């Protein structure tokens, strides 16, 4: 029960003022600039963009600063800002096959066209804290290799060429891509909508679910066919022009998971797939998403839903951290009246029980 309560204005105003002070911290320490956040905490900015479902590095960095580094608060801020803007339309689908890659690795093929490109990765670091970063660290310029890059072939095309893997996911011809920011959720949910939900889903939640499939709660026998990260063009059809213009480039991370094969009397066995695509550089999220995408296709492959990661309604309804935090955190708001009612009930029950203990006659109905 919700009851309007007045009062506390001064306390709230002062709390916000105190928050601003604590956010700023010691005034003798220089204030962070948005550019510093974008340049030096880029992966935090990327995560906020991915889960806020809004690509804008400056606004995401501002949100991180305003939220004092609380990622979910920053995501919430950016989601709220998003609702103030009109939507001009929908882009053409980005073409990850034409990505300007900054990283590309495959765990299924050692030698593949384009090669293994490690890019800026934490992999193979020793995870030792680096005290040189305590100061204004001097960093070398990156190494250059003059012969540049070869064309980077998609691993799914290598397997697809032999028919060993299912094709890229195709919805029925008359299917219009759904948008869960416009229409209420309904289950069962088509795969395109599930991918939209997962792409903005909480990284930690998806990571845990992906992990659970590996530990046996709905195994899918995954191999990383390919992970690629880099820049893709966003093209948009402008009303009045008969060509699509490029609005610029965005950075995305894509994961192609190759999963357990499936065959039947009619079809020879072939590998199945899970897909992950995320704004910014976030391999962990893209991998988790592809594991969960595959797990959510359980019924499509005629398998039984036995594990949490395979339960569409459970996964999709709980993967959004802004919704989740709203409902969990609302518990701290005043529930004075509900609680008074409960308190009253408990007191009456106790009084009744105490009465019985003193030997009052039992009511027949009990």
């Amino acid at each position, binding site marked *: 029960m919700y009851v309007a309560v007045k009062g506390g204005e001064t306390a709230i105003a002062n709390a916000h003022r105190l928050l601003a002070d604590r956010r700023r911290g010691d005034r003798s320490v220089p204030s962070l600039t948005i550019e510093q956040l974008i340049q030096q905490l880029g992966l935090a900015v990327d995560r906020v963009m991915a889960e806020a479902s809004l690509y804008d590095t400056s606004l995401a960095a501002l949100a991180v600063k305003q939220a004092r580094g609380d990622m979910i608060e920053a995501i919430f801020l950016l989601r709220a800002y998003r609702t103030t803007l*009109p*939507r001009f339309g*929908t882009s053409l689908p980005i073409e990850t096959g034409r990505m300007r890659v900054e990283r590309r690795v495959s765990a299924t093929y050692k030698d593949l066209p384009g090669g293994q490109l490690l890019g800026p990765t934490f992999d193979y670091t020793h995870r030792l804290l680096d005290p040189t970063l305590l100061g204004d660290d001097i960093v070398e310029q990156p190494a250059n290799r003059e012969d540049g890059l070869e064309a980077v072939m998609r691993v799914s095309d290598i397997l697809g060429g032999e028919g060993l893997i299912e094709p890229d996911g195709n919805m029925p011809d008359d299917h219009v891509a759904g948008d869960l920011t*416009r229409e209420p959720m309904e289950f069962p949910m088509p795969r395109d909508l599930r991918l939209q939900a997962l792409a903005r889903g909480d990284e930690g939640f998806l990571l845990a679910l992906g992990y659970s499939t590996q530990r046996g709660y709905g195994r899918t026998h995954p191999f990383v066919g390919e992970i690629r990260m880099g820049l893709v063009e966003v093209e948009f059809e402008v*009303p*009045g022009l008969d060509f699509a213009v490029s609005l610029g480039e965005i950075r995305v991370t894509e994961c192609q998971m190759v999963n357990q094969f499936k065959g039947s009397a009619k079809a020879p066995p072939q590998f199945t797939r899970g897909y992950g695509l995320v704004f910014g550089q976030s391999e962990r999220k893209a991998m988790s998403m592809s594991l969960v995408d595959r797990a959510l296709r359980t019924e499509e492959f005629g398998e039984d839903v036995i594990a949490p990661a395979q339960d569409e309604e459970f996964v999709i309804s709980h993967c959004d951290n802004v919704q989740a935090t709203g409902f969990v955190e609302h518990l701290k708001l005043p529930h004075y009246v509900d609680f008074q009612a409960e308190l009253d009930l408990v007191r009456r029950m106790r009084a009744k029980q105490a009465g019985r203990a003193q030997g009052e006659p039992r009511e027949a109905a009990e």
Partner: protein
Amino acid sequence: MQSKNQSLAGGFPDAVLNSQSVFRTLMDCMARPGTVGTVSPGIAPPAPLGIAAGAVMLTLCDNDTPVWLSPELTKSGTTAWLSFHCGAPLTREKTEARFAFLEAGAAMPPFSLFSAGSQDYPDRSTTLVIEVISLDGGPSLNLTGPGIRDITTIGPVGLPDPFLHQWIGNRALFPRGIDVVLTAGRALLCLPRTTKITAVEA
């Protein structure tokens, strides 16, 4: 190219304030069915789209609202104007349309071909914007229902023939049903699905 460019002119001079003022007029008129409102922003929609109809289009239509245009409007500069200013998709399927526009004298398709919304989402129905010759001076129609204290009388000139008959069918669908905005030049009045219309015997 030149003809194309014409279609880009004539939008709201001040998109934010103008659309707010038209929205306010529409809201008031929808809340008080039969009340005549006037849109003031200086816009120049491509003929035969009227000024009030154009203002409604600029205010309410956007990327999320498929729009159906009458055959005459489809052939006119309205298509490009709608696309440039509103970014709204044009649809040929009347049931998909959130808004439908008809110029004065256009043949009126049966209301039942448009979306009446669903029982769960009655708001997903089509709103018809119909241009008439004038909002007054025609045969008197009495309006009653929510938003009307006793009776409001209107006298539109050039209402499509089957309108009154079809309106009875539309009212029977409640809470589903279409809503209508009648426009004439700068003036408009609203007939939400809740309004009962009775022809006054002469």
